[in-house]
């Protein structure tokens, strides 16, 4: 990847991945201390995908994600303080505290959640793309999901619909090889996921999800193809989560060696190495980035800590659309 990136751009990508990682590590700490509750699924190890993919999307495009979505949200531009406040259940959170870790929504950034039923986001993405097609919007809907989702019926139905109706969806499969505790090889007869998409006539490709520059380039290519009216595309990003499925997960199903093997391919270390090799990254850059990332994450924690809890009287808020708003439209 030598020479592929400018110093400025390289530092930007590096900082973002470092930010996401530091944010997630801090979440684990805060979870252990009891400030974050419920399920907490961390993105550590997978940062290159969110960081690279979001760079290739325009602010006008739609993004749909899963319950492992903090990295996607931050890369999309949702302020880390709002993501953290959401996990604290505070009003200042991106979903007003109602959703928590698994349900980050920020419609102002066209970031449409935060879906916690495996594969639940895929049909929704198809529908959003359908709406754009019907309204002649030149917009791409990027839909993130994991390898586990490929086993669900919703995946197959969504592939078919998107291809049948030639819809502008980019299916981004983050294959970290484990559906919770079950390895891909024990969950799916055909482990080449791209072939499944291809069988529905969705052009499919694969990229190294541990290489942020490769991800960005691949997504840029696929997005362009979709935007040009070529219908849906499928891109599998091979990656790995270093941490367990969730904070509840004792992680007994993987060997330490396996995890170590993937850590040697760490996306942050890889990018650092490439930038160093190109002599555009210096040690003082790294410590400056670390300090700045630390500041930003601590700022996010402060936002969450200082945020306020919604009064209990508002319990029934947002179960239905406030009528006066709906009728005024």
């Amino acid at each position: 990847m030598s020479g592929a990136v400018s110093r400025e751009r390289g530092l930007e990508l590096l900082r973002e991945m470092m930010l996401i990682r530091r944010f997630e590590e801090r979440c684990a700490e805060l979870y252990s201390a009891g400030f974050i509750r419920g399920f907490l699924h961390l993105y550590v190890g997978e940062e290159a995908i969110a960081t690279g993919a979001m760079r290739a999307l325009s602010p006008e495009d739609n993004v749909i994600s899963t319950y492992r979505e903090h990295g996607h949200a931050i890369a999309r531009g949702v302020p880390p303080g709002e993501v953290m406040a959401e996990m604290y259940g505070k009003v200042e959170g991106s979903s007003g505290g109602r959703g928590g870790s698994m349900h980050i929504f920020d419609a102002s950034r066209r970031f449409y959640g935060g879906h916690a039923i495996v594969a639940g986001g895929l049909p929704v993405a198809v529908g959003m793309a359908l709406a754009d097609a019907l309204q002649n919007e030149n917009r791409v809907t990027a839909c993130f999901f994991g390898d586990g989702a490929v086993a669900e019926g919703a995946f197959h139905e969504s592939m078919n619909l998107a291809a049948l109706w030639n819809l502008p969806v980019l299916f981004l499969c983050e294959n970290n090889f484990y559906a919770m505790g079950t390895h891909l090889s024990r969950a799916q007869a055909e482990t080449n996921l791209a072939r499944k998409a291809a069988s529905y006539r969705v052009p499919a490709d694969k990229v190294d999800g541990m290489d942020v520059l490769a991800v960005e380039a691949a997504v840029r290519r696929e997005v362009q193809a979709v935007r040009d009216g070529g219908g849906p595309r499928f891109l599998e990003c091979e990656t790995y989560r270093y941490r367990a499925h969730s904070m509840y997960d004792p992680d007994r199903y993987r060997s330490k060696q396996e995890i170590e093997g993937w850590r040697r391919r760490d996306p942050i270390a890889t990018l650092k190495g490439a930038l160093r090799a190109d002599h555009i990254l210096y040690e003082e850059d790294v410590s400056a980035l670390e300090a700045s990332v630390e500041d930003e994450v601590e700022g996010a924690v402060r936002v969450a800590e200082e945020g306020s809890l919604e009064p209990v009287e508002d319990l029934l808020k947002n179960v239905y659309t406030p009528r006066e708003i709906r009728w005024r439209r």
Partner: protein
Amino acid sequence: MATMTYREAIREAHREALSSDPRVFLMGEDVGRYGGVFAVSLGMAEEFGEERIRDTPLSEVGFVGAGVGAASAGMRPIVEVMTVNFSLLAMDQIVNGAATLRHMSGGQLSVPLVIRMATGAGKQVAAQHSHSFENWYAHVPGLRVAAPATVHDARFMLKAALADPDPVILFEHVLLYNMSGEVEELAGPVDLRRAAIRRAGDDVSLITYGGSLPKVLEAAEHLASGGIDAEVVDLRALRPLDLETILSSVRKTHRAVVVDEGWHTGSLAGEISARIAEDALYDLDAPVERICSAEAPVPYPHHLEQAALPKVDEIAAAAKRRVGSDG
């Protein structure tokens, strides 16, 4: 008597079933190597092999449907669906399949399938992992629905479910898995037709099931200290309901409070209230009251989640109101 957790009791029940009947097998997401997301089947894959403790992909409609097929073809499958929320993906196979095959085949097929699923809120896992849809299944003829609320029932309800020739759904509330309790070791299977009186009393019937039972028992203790003698009825079977026990309790106490973690509207508590109104109206000395969840998806923050769910003090206050001693 042996003391164990609810989780261990269910595991023991599985081990007993797997050891005694070669037709029994367990399948579900991460039940094998992982040991089950609630660790119910921990160690069982090693003991019984991956053939009989079978991991499935995240394919609810597929593996639940496969359970229906295997049951109708001579096996005795136990299907674990991680939570009732995910079971909605498989509802078609359960409602259109398991519940109807016997009927629409004119009695040629039967589906001796057991489906277990976790249900309920209280762990701050937000609106897609916290709901109680037991009543949706309890609505469906052809299904038998039950909920073990004690460690003893957790130990012996599976046996009864497996012995039943028709599909049985067992609901396990997520907050019960860590509960410890006593088990009578040589007890027979739980009678799925009978509700249980968990506490006898004369002043008011507190009717509940599953995860709400501990709250109701706590409320009953609180009431006792105030001189109100509450009877606690644990439904155990949500379909068909043991009306005999419910109505005889109400006929004795003349007052009923029904506690159900589902939402009020269309709830199991609503069904029970209607049955009481139909069959025991003239025994009532006060209106039936329901304590259910607030009519909103379960929110993530602790204080809002707790506000949304039935609470001990709320149950006690309802009982006092109905007994007429709230001043």
